[in-house]
Each structure stands twice: as C-alpha cells, then as structure tokens.
C-alpha cells in the first residue's frame, strides 16, 4: 500500500455531486474515512488516476456506475465471524424465538459470508427449509455474486478456524468444493433465499420480520442515516423479533433504543418490545 486517503474534502464532494446528479444516488450519508477509502479502492481496481478522471467516467459512461457500486462495496470479512454469536444463535436464540414459517431479513449483503453462515447454522438446526430468508443488496451486480456463492480459497483458512470455535458436529468442508483456488459453496444452502436489490432510502421494507441480521453495515453510515435505517428496520419487525448488529455497533443513543431490550450485550443481540 503506497497511498492512503489522498482525496480531499472538496474532491470528495465533487464525486458525490456527480453521482447524485448523473445517477440520482445519494452517498452523502456515508461515513467519511471508510467511504474515501472505498472510492480510492474502486479507482485503483479500474486504473483510474485522479478524481477528475473518475468524475468524467461516472458522468459519461452510463454503465460504469454498476461496476463502481460493486467496487466500493465492502466485503464481509469472513464466515462465522465472532463464533460465540453463532453459537448463541444456534443454541439459544433461534430455537427460542424462530418457529416454522418465520421471516429473516439480511440487509445489505455484499460478499455473502454472513448469509452463508446463517444458512449453515439453520441447516445444523434442521430449520433451513422452515424459514423464509430475504437477502437484500445495494448493487445490481451483487445479486449475482450472492447467488453464485463462490469465495476465494484464501478466506477459507480463517473461515475454518472460526468454524472450529463454533463447535459444530458438522464439517465445513462438506459445504463446498474447492476448484481453481475458489470455494464453491453448495447452492442448496441459498436455494430458498430471496435475493433482491434494495435501497433503504427509496424502497419499501419487507414486513413481518422475525429476525434481522445486520452486522457491521451501519458503521459505514453517518449517525443520521443510521437512525433512519434503524427506523425502517424497526418498522419491518414484529414485536418480539430479534435484531442483531455488529459487536461494536449498538442501539445506544439511537432513536430506536426504547423499542428494544438487550438480550445479549456482548454479541449485540436485541429483542423488539414495541
């Protein structure tokens, strides 16, 4: 890595303005530092030098925006991240709170690591065919990425180590085939998952949701947008539903704090009470 965060605030605003005016997409609610880095990563991936070139491509090449959205998205880090959370979900939360016919929503899926993890946990509980999972993503290209369920083999080392800490009777290797340095996961896991494009700002949220798995996604928004997303998520959930965010995210000081009680503080698991 030679350069970090070279885009200044004025260039940043110019990029946001270009995207907004040309494509009607508002990125002004993004968390600044991480989003600057995402833009820089997208520029490097596409060999774009300088923000003026980026703005020129964004405003003249209509199709580039889909690629840009895909390239700025931040991959989920690994499967079974925070193994204790998945243990808690498998051994306590899901058996206690999710029944046949329940609805689970996984918003803003990027690479699909969390979604695959969830399906393996449900499979272990023999509940995968009993629940309806909706996975939403921001970009058009991501729908295909999620449905492919292919992951680089270099990620499997940490995934396997996490899985071992999750203390399962199953073997992670039984869920994928290694080919060309990639792990092809069993598509049966996501066969019944409804994967669709979704934008918090404009789209209608799913309804009657029993569990929302939304980890380490709010961190990429400013506080105001976090509140507005949490309003929508709260509205989508049934009373008694479960909300899970990242271990370093919380509902404290959000507008929705009073709608939830903490049921597991260290794993950031909440229950909706009103």
């Amino acid at each position, binding site marked *: 890595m030679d350069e*970090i*965060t070279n885009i200044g605030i004025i260039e940043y605003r110019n990029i946001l303005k270009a995207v907004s005016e040309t494509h009607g997409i508002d990125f002004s609610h993004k968390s600044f530092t991480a989003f600057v880095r995402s833009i820089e990563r997208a520029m490097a991936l596409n060999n774009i030098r300088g923000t003026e070139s980026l703005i020129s491509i964004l405003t003249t090449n209509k199709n580039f925006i889909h690629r840009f959205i895909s390239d700025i998205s931040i991959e989920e880090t690994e499967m079974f991240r925070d193994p204790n959370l998945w243990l808690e979900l498998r051994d306590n939360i899901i058996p206690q709170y999710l029944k046949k016919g329940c609805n689970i929503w996984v918003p803003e899926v990027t690479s699909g690591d969390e979604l695959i993890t969830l399906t393996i946990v449900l499979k272990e509980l023999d509940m995968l065919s009993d629940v309806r999972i909706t996975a939403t993503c921001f970009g058009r290209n991501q729908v295909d990425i999620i449905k492919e369920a292919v992951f680089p083999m270099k990620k499997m080392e940490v995934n396997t180590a996490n899985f071992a800490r999750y203390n399962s009777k199953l073997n992670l290797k039984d869920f994928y085939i290694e080919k060309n340095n990639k792990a092809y996961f069993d598509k049966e896991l996501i066969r019944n998952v409804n994967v669709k494009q979704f934008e918090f700002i404009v789209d209608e949220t799913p309804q009657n949701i029993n569990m929302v798995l939304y980890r380490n996604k709010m961190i990429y928004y400013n506080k105001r947008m976090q509140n507005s997303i949490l309003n929508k998520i709260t509205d989508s959930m049934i009373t008694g539903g479960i909300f899970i965010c990242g271990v370093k995210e919380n509902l404290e000081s959000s507008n929705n704090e009073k709608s939830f009680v903490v049921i597991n503080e260290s794993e950031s698991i909440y229950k909706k009470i009103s």
Partner: protein
Amino acid sequence: MSYKAVIIGGSAGSFQVITKILANIPAGFDIPIFLCLHRLKHVRTGFEEALSIKSTLPIIEPYDKQHIRPGKIYLAPANYHMYMELGNTFALSTEPPVNHSRPSIDLSFFSAAYTYKNKLVGIILSGANKDGALGLKQVKLAGGTAIVQDPNECQVKTMPTAAMAATDVDYIFTTDQIISFLKKI
C-alpha cells in the same frame, strides 16, 4: 504547542512498553490517547482489561460513532479498523486488512493526522512489520510530531526502523523519554 491528541502504534514487544507508559500518564492528562496495537483478531476480550490494570486513566474500546472525550485512552477493537473523524467521533470499519493487520496502525494514524493535523503526537513502538511507517509519515506531513521508540531498546525493531526510513522523525526516544515527553505536553 498545544496538542489535541496522542496516537500510539505497537506490535510485537510493545505490550510492556505500553503498560509502563499508561502507568505513568499524569491523572489530569486532558487529551485523548489512541492505541492501535496489533492483536489476535478472534480474541475480543482480555486485552483492554490487561492494559487497564496499571493504567492511570480509563481504557475504552470504542463503539462506532462514540464520542471522543479528553483524558480517556481508546484501544482499537479486535478485527476492526479504528478511525478518528472530524466532529470528535470514532468510526469503525471492517475493510480488508492493511499490512496483514486489522486494526491497521497506518489507517488509524492516517485518519488521526487528517483530523488533528499539527495538534497530534504520533508514536511508533516495537513491532515486527512495517505497519505504521506510512501512518507516521502522514502525521509528520500534516504538521504533527513524529516519535519512534529507540530501536536499540525495542524487543523487535522492524516497526520503528521502517518508520524512520519512511519519514524524518522528530524524536527517537526510550520508554522513559516518551513518558517524560507526554508528561510535559
């Protein structure tokens, strides 16, 4: 010079140095100290507690968007990058590791340099890779004060040596000299 923040990066061989520094920070220290230390990413608990034992000031692993307060020590949480943003808040991120590290010292230093500019002290301690070298360079470019632990005192000198190669540091200090410096600011 009135500083607004101190940021310290360390890796292999830095734990005892950090512990000694934290044990000697004056109780009335009125600016925040950010710690970005390489740590096992799957071990979330224990580190904050271990550092707290001798620390004179409270140590906090911040949540995303938590406010930065003076006189507190903030430790980058396991498996997250930690940014200090304008508006005095933290922002966390799960972007890919940088220099094989999440938290990455370079990324934390870079955001602190952007936010605090010439009001920042950056300190690189003992460590076994070059993470932090570009970060300390950025602290210096932004007008801040760049310090490295004296490589002769380091258990592993790669990190301060890499920082010295990347930028013209202001001071090469032993642990005791770092403590004296911090007591005077």
